[in-house]
Structures are given as C-alpha cells and as structure tokens.
C-alpha cells in the first residue's frame, strides 16, 4: 500500500491536469441544477404523470448504464436522449444517476 500511494497520487495529478473542466464530480447544488431539466419531461422529482418514463427510484447503476448508452448512440429508435446526453460529461451522468436513484419511485402530489 505504501508503495502504491505515490503512484495513485501521480495518476490523480495527471488526471487533474488533463481532464476538462466539466470532468469533476458536481457538488450537490450543481447536481440539482443539472438534474432540474430532466423533470421538465420526466415529471416532478422524476415521477412522470404521463407518457414519459419515470426515472425516480430506479437503481443507480441501471440509470448510469442507460444514460451512457444513450450518450454513445447505442439505443435504436432513440428520439431526443442521445442529443441531450452528448452534452453531459460522464461524471455529470453519474451525478444524474445518483440523484434520481435517491428519489422515491413515486412522489406523492
């Protein structure tokens, strides 16, 4: 472990130096801002009242995998989700998945 630590430190430094600005993990407030727009289609707190799928309370890993697949254009028949997810860094997508996984699956009005 002691020998590994400097290597990890160097790797972290390298990542910090090369990563784009958006590639840091968003703060809670920034994550809420990122997640806000999702509700305009997927409903209040991610619980949809209509034809859009609900996103609240789904497992974090499932959401993250799905959003990354949208981002990569890997889901046939996709309408807007690929266009939207291409605007999010992987760290931001992870934050979205964490945010909606933590919300109750059904919000009470």
């Amino acid at each position, binding site marked *: 472990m002691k020998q590994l630590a400097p290597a990890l430190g160097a790797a972290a430094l390298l990542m910090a130096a090369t990563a784009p600005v*958006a590639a840091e993990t*968003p703060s809670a*407030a*920034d994550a*809420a*801002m*990122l997640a*806000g*727009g*999702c*509700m*305009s*289609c*997927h*409903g*209040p707190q991610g619980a*949809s*009242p*209509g*034809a*859009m799928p609900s996103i609240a309370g789904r497992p974090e890993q499932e959401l993250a995998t799905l959003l990354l697949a949208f981002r990569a254009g890997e889901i046939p*028949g996709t*309408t*807007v989700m690929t*266009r*939207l*997810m*291409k*605007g*999010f860094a992987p760290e931001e997508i992870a934050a979205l998945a964490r945010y909606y996984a933590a919300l109750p699956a059904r919000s009470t*009005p």
Partner: protein
Amino acid sequence: MITRRDLLRGGAAALATLAAPHVARAAPARVVVVGGGFGGATAARQLRRLAPEIAVTLVDPAPRFVTCPFSNLVLAGLRNIGSISHDFAALERLGITRVQAAAREIDQSGRRLVLADGSALPYDRLVLSPGVDMRWDALEGYDEAAASLAPHAWKAGEQTLLLRRQLEALEDGGLVVMTVPDNPYRCPPGPYERVGLIAHYLKTARPRAKILVLDAKDAFSKKALFQEGWKALYGDMVEWIGQADDGAVVRVDAARREAVTAFGTVHKAAVLNVIPPQQAGAIARRAGLTDASGWVPVKPESFAARQGEHIHVVGDATQAAPMPKSGFCASGQGRLASAAIAAELGGRPAPRPAWMNTCYSLVGPDYGISVADVYRVAEGRIATVPGAGGVSPLGADSAFRAAEARFAGGWYDAITADIWGPRR
C-alpha cells in the same frame, strides 16, 4: 444594531459574524415573483423547495395561466382551453402567497413593487417573468383593435378561442393566411406547428381550404422537417412563402382581412392570423430593464437584469440566445434564478448554470418532431454544448414520428405538473 438589510448586503460575511439565534430571529427575506407562467411559477416553486425560510409572493392578474404550448391543439379542435389552463392552488398549498393583481411599476431604490391599485409589495429580490407583449407599432395597421378582427393568438386564452371560432366559420375552399415575424419572437417553431395543426383540422372539416404562410424570414426552426411533414400529411394544402419570395408582410388591413407584402402584393384571406413582432412585457420596459432591442439583457450565471438592482428576469422577455424563447427554457431559467437567489440570500456559493431544452412540435396529431439542446455558460456567455443537441432525423418512419408525438404529450403533462402541480 444589524438590520436585516445589512445582513442581506453583507451576505456570507455578515452571517458568519452572527450567532445562529440572531439569524433565526431576523425577519424572513422576501422574494416577489411577477408572472405565473413557465418562468415565474417555476421560480416561486423552486424557491419554496430550496429555501423554505424565504417568504415568496407570486403576482399575476389572471386567476390561471393558459399555456401557449398546446394552444395550437385547441385551434385544431383537439383539446379544450381548460386542458391547457393551470391555476395556482397547488403553489398556494406550498406556502406561496398569491396576489391576483397587475404589477404597475418598480420602485428600485425603495425595493417595492407597485401594483395597479397603488399598493406596494416590499422585496429583497424581485423576479420578473413578464413574457412578451405585442409591438402594436411595428406592423402598419395592426394594433390592439385589429387583433380582435385578425387575431394573433400568440398569447393563449381569448385570442386562441377567437381564432378557433373563425376557423370553424370558414367556408370550404376559403383561404387562411398566417403572417410570421422575423426573429426573435416567442416559440420559434410555434407558427409552423400551428400551420400543420390548422391543416389537420381543415383536411377533415374543410378539405378544399388552403393555408398560405407569409414569412419575414427564409430560414426557420426545423424547416426541412416541417416541410417534409406538411407535404406528407397535407399535400398542396399548405403554401409557405419566405422573405426572398416577397413573404415579408409590411401592412395589414384587419377589417378587409388583407396582408400586404414589402413588394405590394395584397393577399386577401378569409381568416387572417397575424403574428406580429414582439418585445419584453411592459413591466420590464417601464422599469428600464430592456435595451434598444426591446428585450432584457441578463447575467447568464443568475439571470439578474444587467440594467437593474436586485431584479432577476427570466423567460421570453430576456435576451438569452442561443436559448430559444420556449416554456422549457423559461422554466430552466426560473430554476437557475431561484437557486442563485437562495444561494445569495443564504450565503452559499452560487450553483453552476446548466440548462436543457426540448421543443416538440406536432405536424399532425400523430406526427411529432423535435429540437433539443444543452446549454452551459462559457466565457461569460450562454453557449450550446458542442456535439450535443440537434433536430429529429429527416425521412424517419411513421413509428418514430408517432413516438415523438406521444412524447410531446408526455412532455406537456410532465412540465405542467412540475410547475403548477399535478392535475386533480
């Protein structure tokens, strides 16, 4: 003695020097929101969520908000006006104080909003979401009285119902003429959605009628997609004339239902729908918040008005390009402004701005198309995120178009529930 105002002025530094009990006894900060539409109602609701200690008042003269989105479905007879009307009861249940009154002017130095009856609401922060006003001086012959003969229907409500009645009274074989202004105006793809949905109504009820679109510009939002859809669904029922082909209307005779173009061509209509040039809502103009463009310049990180103090402006009234004047964007701007205000009053760091937009348009009831974008602030300006966003593909199959039509309905149900609360 440290007053509440000192506290607000000093922000985090002042708060840090005080013991918590003093803070707890301070009078609550007051935020007044003008306009209960997509931007204002979002700002009011989100402030309650983010900072329950702030007293929020929502000022709007109307008992309910009628959305421009989906009002084209009312024109087509596919929805009634009640289904696009949203009252403020759910917002009141959240603890928002509602004042049903028109805002007359802003006393900026006294930080008071003066209402139509002369009474005033004091505020620490003011949020304006005043929407658009028609520019009654911009198109010769088209003033407020003319709008009762040749409706704009660009604010939903009575104008929508008036145009609907005129369409219902149209004789078969009659000509519907729509005039469309140059950018910027509320809802860039809205006129073209309207064309398709009126055509849908005519196709079933007045199959020999025609629609002529006289446009002041040559390019418009989702143009290729709209034209593909019009052709597929309505054949030659729809004719669109751009600026280069003398589509720009410079004069209107509402009584005669005539639109006159720049080169003097007179188009006589049976139903004349004039969508005139627009500007920021009156309260923003009277307060000196607009510049020569007629719109309100804002700081992207907070949507604080550049020409005001302690005033944030959101929605269609602002200059927020490349964000369009859409309900989706107005809501996102309301969300950001409320987060920025809550952070500032609470002495916390401001959130990093982030927005999305998705505008669905219906070419027909089962034929939807969309444009989507992602926005951030880069180098002090709002910018689209490179590589993201875009429009629906041309030549997509009917299943794809039907899916986007279904999602358009899903979007409407979601965003209206998110802003005004679930329908009961």
